[in-house]
């Protein structure tokens, strides 16, 4: 394989992995607090939409990112009201949010740009190449990203530290394992879950912003194309650990990049098999090492029954 090919592979790997990483980290935090957020896909999509609209009208991608995060957080807030506040079923509410996001972004997009669409284009985030490092062959691709890309990777040790080395992290994990015991210890269970949800919404919104403003530089209805659900799976495959989520996102991103490059070689392999590759490869690799980690004990249980 040539150096150019490897560089191109790594570049695509990173751009495919970052949205999954951001959304996966968000889901990780909220699941550690005992809530399954099926609405991740909807938060990602509304983040993509809000970021695109703000960037398109103001030409300030950073403002787009803020709006994208805000849109994700808004949906997460709604989720928190119904699930944490009223004790609604997490799966049902999450699914409803996904449908709401598809509908609402579609209606808003058509209301602003006309029913037949406008094929938007924005300049998007500027790249911030790291001097010297970005000149390296192949791995240089790692050091030639928009700030949001670096931030996604930097969040991994930060979240890991926050979850496992701080008091707030211990409280959050307590809520996810046994909310009654946590409450007895004086942990504000509902507050913790709401805060985790808002953080998750912001991260999912950031994932959508990256997809729309940093990579595709356009918006299309339904452009999240299932990434939110893949991120849900990534949290499970990554065994509820930030480093696991990072590894799984990169693995999935790499398999996606690889399959497009193999398709581009023009070999006589049915394309359906290649499109399957990311899913199959991720399954095989992760089925390979059976770990002892398990899901947070109170995951998905409504507070009243916990």
């Amino acid at each position: 394989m040539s150096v150019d090919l490897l560089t191109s592979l790594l570049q695509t790997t990173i751009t495919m992995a970052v949205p999954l990483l951001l959304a996966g980290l968000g889901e990780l935090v909220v699941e550690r607090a005992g809530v399954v957020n099926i609405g991740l896909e909807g938060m990602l999509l509304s983040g993509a939409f809000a970021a695109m609209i703000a960037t398109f009208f103001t030409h300030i991608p950073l403002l787009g990112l803020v709006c994208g995060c805000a849109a994700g957080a808004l949906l997460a807030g709604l989720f928190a009201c119904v699930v944490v506040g009223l004790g609604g079923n997490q799966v049902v509410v999450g699914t409803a949010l996904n449908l709401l996001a598809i509908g609402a972004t579609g209606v808003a997009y058509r209301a602003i740009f006309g029913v037949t669409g406008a094929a938007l284009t924005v300049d998007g985030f500027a790249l911030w190449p790291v001097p010297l490092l970005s000149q390296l062959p192949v791995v240089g691709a790692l050091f030639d990203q928009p700030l949001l890309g670096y931030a996604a990777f930097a969040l991994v040790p930060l979240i890991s530290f926050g979850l496992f080395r701080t008091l707030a992290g211990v409280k959050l994990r307590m809520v996810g394992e046994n909310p009654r015991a946590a409450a007895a210890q004086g942990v504000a269970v509902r507050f913790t879950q709401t805060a985790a949800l808002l953080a998750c919404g912001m991260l999912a919104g950031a994932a959508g912003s990256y997809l729309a403003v940093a990579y595709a530089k356009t918006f299309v209805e339904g452009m999240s194309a299932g990434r939110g659900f893949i991120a849900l799976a990534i949290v499970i495959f990554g065994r509820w650990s930030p480093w696991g989520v990072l590894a799984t996102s990169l693995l999935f991103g790499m398999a996606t990049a690889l399959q497009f490059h193999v398709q581009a070689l023009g070999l006589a392999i049915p394309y359906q098999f290649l499109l399957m590759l990311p899913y199959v490869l991720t399954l095989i690799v992760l089925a390979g090492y059976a770990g002892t980690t398990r899901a947070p004990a109170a995951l998905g249980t409504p507070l009243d029954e916990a």
Partner: protein
Amino acid sequence: MKCRFPFAVAAFSAAIVALVATSSADSQPAGKPFKVALLSPGPVSDAGWNALAYEGLLAIRDQLGAEVSQIQTKTPAEFEEGFRDFARRGYQLVFGHGFEFQDAAAAVAPDFPGTVFITTSGNTVRKNVAPIRFLLEESTYLEGVLAASMSKGGKAGVIGGMEIPSVKSTILAFEAGAKSINPDFKVVTTYVGNWEDVGAAKAAALALVQQGCDFLFHNADAAGLGVFQAAQQSHVFAFGSNKNQNGVAPEVVIASATIDIPQAFVQIARAVQGGGFEGKVVRKGMKEGVVSFVLNPQLEAKIPADVKTRLDQTKAAIAAGSLRVPTAEF
């Protein structure tokens, strides 16, 4: 939870009552209104294939005074349910926008003899089912000619949404056009697997450029917008599909293969309204003025004069019928 349940039921019932009330108010017939519906396989805001069908539907509304409705359908089960639902509500004409709708149309048609089902593409014909076959291939053949005449690397990349016969056929014609200029010209095809994932389409296009493709051709509806992004980033030329997309990325989209779907829709709607509909394959190509090859005026200066002459000659030969563009049989 328990105490909220009656409220939910009440709200739900109220919503249904409101819905029924409005829909019955809509269909108050003064005479018998002409009602036309469209099932689109993707969002009509794609500025391409689906947007064109929606424009066609609006043209029918404006020119024939029809009552129109549109829904987005994704799965074969939804196609059939969509057809059935509109037919049951007395729509006289329902369009299923794409090759993938023909089985559903054939399955539903016998139950609703009073409704005409049109699929855009396909070959399934019944008493009240007919496909409009847009010969987009005539225009993608010309794109192939242009790509092979100007390519430096001798290689073009194609990004398709899904591998359906109508998409394959346009690619086949593109390749044939390119090979008519340079028999060694290579066309590599990649599929995204859906019609919406712009990010994946961009990644697919970049991978093709990496393999040395310096012309990109897409037939992926909304996802195709990602192909233009890739072309802009890597400074290669791209072609627009179905709709004139030259303006989407004017510095890289060198030409578009376009279909005047509204014109074709209005023609067929007029036939249905007037009772002159026949169940047969309707073919619309360059000769009928429905399919066109549109060069981007901003990039025309980059096309050498002899290539332009060749394009004009080929175009004339296709329109006159002396050159038959190869298509996939379906």
